């Protein structure tokens, strides 16, 4: 895209994200209805969720604990006193005509998230605040001509809204930040991270300004993006749209936009345009949430090893690169898998890292499986690594063994034995194969001896072929050099 290229040069992108993470509580934030996904319409909407006359909210302590542990994990301040406020607007998925949220006094303030980009560079993104609020219901339009159906099962599900500073400068940074937050909330066990079900989604505030300008440009807010891929695409589209607009003498309007994944574009949301006077005021049905130091300490004691801490430990303990450590700590489950494999194997942690981050990740990705559902267990992978380490098989053969393990869910050893894949390390059979190849290719031999060094590779290939790839590569190399030189 021409505009995107231009954006690269003259324009700077400024992005802030508001991430909504559904908290993994059993019951809703202000009612005792279940939060499970996929119930029949309105089966999980109780009187409080429906906003029936006379009913009142009572705050779920677990939602508070989850918000606090998140705040502690990002180095934020936990407010000793926070207040719920009503955000007033009319929408059919908002039963009371107001959303209970936090406005002036959120439960979590400040903090930061460190991200590492693909090129290894690191950035720190500041978090403005994180507050508790209730989710809205869902509007369904399909199969109802001229009508919209309202399902309020989701209404009242606890959310923590994590608001970043406008610190990101590219779609890639935004994705890295969102992924990092996603990793963190799952480490903390406070959100299942299921983006298809809407458990983790974001609004992106996007603006552009001329490089070097101090003032931010006018921003557009892209609502409700529920995949990492869409975040990147939506932001890139929006940046290009704004740059084109500005370069053709137009103006960016502050508005709410929606990303359409089918068309790959953002469009203005007319329905939200006028709803901009929310008349926030403290909710008189709820009292201030007061958290003392003892409470905050008790939550801090529950903090698990966090992704950054784990990655740092992997670098020192396993002598891995920062990049490898990041990859392996992307989820607590993956990191546990890796550590189990290393322990069972007992050999090179780097080799284990290459396999977990390489072939295993590729197979999981290909089959769309989570690490917990891997068809090769950490112990089984350790068995394979042992055979590479003790030279029973080469790295190349190991790839075939791994695929067989994946398909059959057998251990490495029986596969190696059954297929006769054990590496040839004795000189005798390798020398025999070399001799046979030399006899079969006199012309090439002559050329090589006349100085055409490049033909060495040809001979390696021929001998490997003759040994069905089982020759120990290092031994083969040494012996072949001797023989060719005669």
């Amino acid at each position: 895209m021409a505009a995107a290229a231009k954006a690269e040069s003259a324009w700077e992108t400024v992005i802030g994200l508001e991430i909504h993470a559904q908290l993994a509580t059993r019951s809703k934030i202000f009612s005792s209805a279940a939060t499970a996904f996929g119930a029949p319409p309105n089966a999980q909407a109780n009187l409080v969720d429906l906003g029936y006359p006379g009913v009142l909210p009572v705050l779920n302590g677990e939602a508070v604990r989850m918000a606090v542990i998140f705040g502690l994990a990002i180095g934020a301040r936990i407010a000793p006193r926070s207040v719920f406020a009503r955000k007033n607007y009319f929408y059919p998925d908002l039963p009371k005509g107001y959303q209970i949220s936090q406005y002036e006094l959120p439960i979590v303030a400040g903090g930061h998230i460190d991200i590492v980009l693909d090129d290894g560079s690191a950035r720190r993104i500041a978090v403005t605040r994180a507050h508790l609020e209730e989710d809205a219901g869902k509007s369904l339009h399909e199969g109802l001509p001229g009508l919209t159906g309202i399902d309020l099962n989701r209404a009242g599900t606890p959310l923590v809204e994590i608001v970043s500073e406008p610190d990101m400068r590219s779609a890639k940074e935004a994705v890295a930040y969102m992924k990092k937050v996603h990793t963190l909330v799952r480490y903390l066990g406070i959100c299942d991270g299921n983006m298809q079900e809407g458990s983790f989604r974001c609004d992106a505030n996007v603006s552009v300004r001329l490089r070097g300008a101090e003032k931010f440009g006018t921003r557009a807010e892209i609502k409700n993006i529920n995949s990492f891929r869409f975040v990147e695409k939506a932001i890139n589209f929006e940046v290009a749209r704004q740059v084109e607009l500005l370069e053709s003498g137009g103006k960016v309007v502050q508005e709410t936009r929606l990303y359409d994944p089918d068309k790959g574009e953002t469009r203005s949301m007319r329905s939200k345009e006028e709803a901009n006077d929310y008349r926030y005021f403290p909710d008189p049905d709820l009292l201030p949430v007061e958290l003392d130091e003892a409470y905050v300490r008790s939550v801090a004691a529950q903090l698990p090893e966090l992704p950054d801490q784990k990655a740092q430990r992997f670098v020192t303990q396993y002598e891995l690169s920062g990049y490898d450590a990041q990859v392996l700590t992307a989820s607590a489950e993956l990191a546990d898998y890796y550590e189990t494999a290393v322990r069972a194997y007992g050999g090179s942690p780097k080799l284990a890292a290459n396999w977990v981050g390489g072939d295993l990740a590729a197979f999981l990705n290909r089959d769309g499986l989570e690490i917990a559902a891997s068809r090769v267990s950490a112990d089984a992978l350790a068995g394979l690594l042992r055979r590479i380490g003790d030279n029973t098989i080469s790295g190349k053969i190991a790839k075939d063994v791994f695929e067989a393990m994946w398909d059959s869910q057998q251990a490495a050893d029986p596969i190696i034995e059954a297929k006769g894949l054990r590496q040839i390390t004795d000189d005798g059979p390798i020398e025999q194969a070399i001799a046979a190849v030399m006899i079969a290719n006199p012309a090439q031999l002559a050329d090589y001896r006349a100085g055409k060094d490049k033909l060495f590779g040809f001979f390696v290939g021929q001998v490997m072929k003759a040994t069905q790839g089982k020759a120990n590569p290092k031994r083969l190399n040494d012996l072949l050099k001797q023989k060719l030189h005669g």
Partner: protein
Amino acid sequence: MSLSRRDIDNIAHLARLALSEAEIPVYIDSLSRIIGLVGELDNAATAGVEPMSHPLAGQKQRLRADSVADSDQHELYQRNAPQVMAGLYLVPKVIE
């Protein structure tokens, strides 16, 4: 203090209230009077005074245990609903 027609239109819109033409001048007049009454608050010296949201000082929010205590009652709850289908509340089409 006098409110304008525009003020009333804006308030009625925010509050989603349909007002008839006959009602509008009545509300312009009565709301202007109420806002006039309320204007007496200007006389109070409130510098440094904390706004009071709750009548009892020192009360704090109680936290509920995270337990589920409801079963599916949507049929009972929807008996009061003007229009439902297949468990859904129905409204005229919402355009996003």
